[in-house]
């Protein structure tokens, strides 16, 4: 008996189930199917690369290399994780390699980072129900990009993978070569810092 979706044309399949069809076709060498996957994820991968490298040119190189590597290594993709999670790991590796090549101070991602267990949040204000709706989409995107760019890279990267790209704590730890407790500790600090930075835009009375 054939698999249920064996004869489903890509255009008839839903976005969720057709990914597997495109991945299978791309694995068999179908470049057009792979291009569909690129179209689907190029914005997310570019944003990830931009957040890590903080540089548009580097982000372009990283995106390109990540997709090429993904295509070359598709035969190794076993389908144990989502294709996107697998792609994110490749992009993170490419971006970290790019950062290391730059040899700047920013490359201290795997050094011990002070996380101050007793860190207490400041500026605790009410934001109201949907504070982001008081901003136009482009304006909001600018704010989010600015505040995340202000974070220490070690915190930014953990937040990016865990809360934006929705990797699990374990997947984030694996992708960054960190321990699970280190990921948790940095995630807490990143979330609190971003909350504090967003407070200046979202507290009641500022945007309403």
């Amino acid at each position, binding site marked *: 008996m054939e698999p249920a979706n064996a004869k489903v044309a890509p255009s008839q399949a839903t976005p969720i189930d057709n990914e597997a069809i495109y991945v299978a076709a791309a694995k068999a060498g179908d*470049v057009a199917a*792979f*291009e569909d996957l*690129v179209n689907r994820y*190029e*914005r*997310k991968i*570019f*944003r990830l690369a931009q957040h890590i490298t903080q540089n*548009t040119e580097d982000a*372009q190189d990283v*995106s*390109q290399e990540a*997709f*090429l590597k993904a*295509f070359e290594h598709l035969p190794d993709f076993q389908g144990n994780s989502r294709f996107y999670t697998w792609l994110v790991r490749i992009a993170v590796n490419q971006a970290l390699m790019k950062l290391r090549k730059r040899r700047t101070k920013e490359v201290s991602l795997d050094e011990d980072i002070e996380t101050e*267990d*007793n*860190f*207490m*949040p400041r500026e*605790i*204000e*009410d*934001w109201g129900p949907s*504070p*982001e709706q008081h901003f136009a*989409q*482009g304006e*909001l*995107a600018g704010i*989010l990009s600015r505040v*995340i760019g202000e974070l220490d890279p070690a915190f930014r990267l953990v*937040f990016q993978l865990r*809360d*934006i790209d*929705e990797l699990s*704590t374990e997947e984030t730890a694996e992708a960054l070569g960190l321990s699970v407790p280190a990921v*948790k500790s940095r*995630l*807490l600090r990143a*979330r*609190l810092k*971003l*909350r504090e930075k*967003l*407070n200046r835009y*979202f507290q009641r009375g500022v945007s309403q």
Partner: protein
Amino acid sequence: MNCKNVVRELCNYLDGGLDSNLQQSIEIHLEHCEDCHLLVDTTKKTIQIFCNSEPLPLSEDIRTRLHEALAKRLSKPKS
């Protein structure tokens, strides 16, 4: 349960990784502590706002360069 403990357990609380006793102690504290209640609420919103944010479209220039580079490399037969 005090405010420091709430901060320490914030991620586990938000991500659903707490045992039921600890979860309940935090919830009781949140009912009485306005600051912690707001902290949990605004941290949750911070995560949601980032998580729901759509990446901006790539500029036509960047997109063209990416696709041209991929097309060039992917059309080459493997050596």
